[in-house]
């Protein structure tokens, strides 16, 4: 089974990754080989087996609804590539 080129391009789009033509063809080869190797899993009978998403029993954690000082805004914005008026600044999202 080999992934087709369009499919690989579609995955890159979904993952918001700009990939070069060379990367697309390399990942096409490598992901096909990896998935081929993993086909072995299909021989395993998992009928009636529940899936495990986490090994811990699900539980709710609650705490008292008390106010606490959050991280200071300037401190948080220090790491941002671009800011304006105390906000993160990004290129226009709407035309």
């Amino acid at each position, binding site marked *: 089974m080999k*992934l087709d080129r369009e*499919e*690989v391009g579609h*995955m*890159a789009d*979904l*993952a*918001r*990754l*700009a*990939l070069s033509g060379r*990367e697309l063809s390399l*990942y096409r080869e*490598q*992901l096909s*080989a*990896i*998935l081929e*190797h*993993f086909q*072995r*899993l*299909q021989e*395993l009978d*998992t009928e009636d*087996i*529940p*899936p*495990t*998403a*986490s*090994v*811990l029993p699900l*539980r709710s*954690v609650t*705490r008292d609804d008390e106010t606490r000082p959050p*991280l*200071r805004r300037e*401190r*948080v914005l*220090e*790491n*941002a*590539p*671009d800011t304006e008026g105390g906000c*993160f600044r*990004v*290129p*226009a*999202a709407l035309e």
Partner: protein
Amino acid sequence: MSTPGLNRLTIHEAGRRLAAGDVTSVELTEAVLDRIATTDSAVRAYLTVTPEQAVAQARAADERRASGEGGPLLGVPIAVKDVLCTEGIPTTAGSRILEGFVPPYDATVVRRLKEDGAVIIGKTNTDEFAMGSSTENSAYFATRNPWDLGRVPGGSSGGSAAAVAADACVAALGSDTGGSVRQPAALCGVVGLKPTYGRVSRYGLIAFASSLDQVGVLTKDVADAAILLGGIAGSDPCDGTATDLPVPDYAALLTADVEGVRIGVMQEAFVKGLQPEVEAAVWTAVDRLVELGAELHEVSLPHADYALPVFYLIAPAEASANLARYDGVRYGHREEAESLDSMYKRTRGRGFGPEVKRRIMLGTYVLSAGYYDAYYLKAQKARTLIKADFDAAFEEVDVILGPTTPTTAFGIGEKIDDPLQMYLSDVFTLSMNLAGICGLSVPCGFDEQGLPIGLQVTGPAFGEERVLRVALAYEQACDWRLRRPDL
């Protein structure tokens, strides 16, 4: 000029000498900094060394001790893997996309160490976002194995393992999603412990695969692993998965008595591709434990063979979601572009390295419509079977023994172009993360080329005490830990 040899001390040796007053934390810290200065240009274990902060913390620790405080970590220099956030100290996760990121807070484990008075000496190299088995996937440089500078230290906590092996810290923190503490510990000849999922808070650990990630410790001996685990374990209001089960005093409870302890040997580990010297060393270790009074049982983990595909379907799926946050908006690197969407794509395309992009692509694929049931859901069901194997095995035995890795350290560049071959170097460590249980690697010999071999001791969920006990009994019956790499 610092006192030579102090950098070689373990946590418990340093603790005794600090308490006795014949050495200060400043002297110990300076000895470690000197060692880094003389060896790290060759080993390259550290991404960032913080000498000024470290000496200031050491001075503060000495003052706390002078005022009557104590504690096993007070004044002890510890290295921290660069996937753990450290307030005011750059934290990159080995990635270009986080270049220049300075966290505004400490990870809970770092905060706990600081409260105990430990000295943070620097940040160690890692495969990018902890994805890799050799530390070659770091976007900055490859770390070298102190036992042979032409070989990898393992990964992804390769910087921490190499720093401990080189005596360029007293002990270190790492993280283990599929073997990233145990595998480099084995390849560098040190002790590496991955605690049970939920034993240690993940708050401030840069997420790779959230249902598998756990912070672990890399140390010079087993007693140190018990001390350092005790320093970081416990519940945390910032991490709902960190359990509130009480934390035993691992160090105080540690004993080397294995009389009547039931040890199981994992038959499935003795497969084709296992280096004969590794196989021989593991069986010799098993015999040693039997001589010490342990009872030998065979155990079977029939689904062990499926751990590799299950792990490499689940972990990339979780990673593809976790790494969506690196979009050039709030922190790290940004590639400028006209539109928001192309800014995201260019930032991520340039900022992530090849292995990270490969796993994001794989994870996106297995979660996408049409493939979800066949891959992701199938893997989650198989995960249930893998966990059930361990549950059944731990009805019969107290711990399971086997090799940590199929081979000793491989050459730099040897596997970097073949992702599947690289993935196979974690084949014995992945299933413990899938089952959420604990495991430790302890040195059990050397191959003909003088490269260390690791024995993996696996215990059930919250079975750290017995894992440490078996490892200590074995360690004390041998003298592997006395060997040091020639640097």
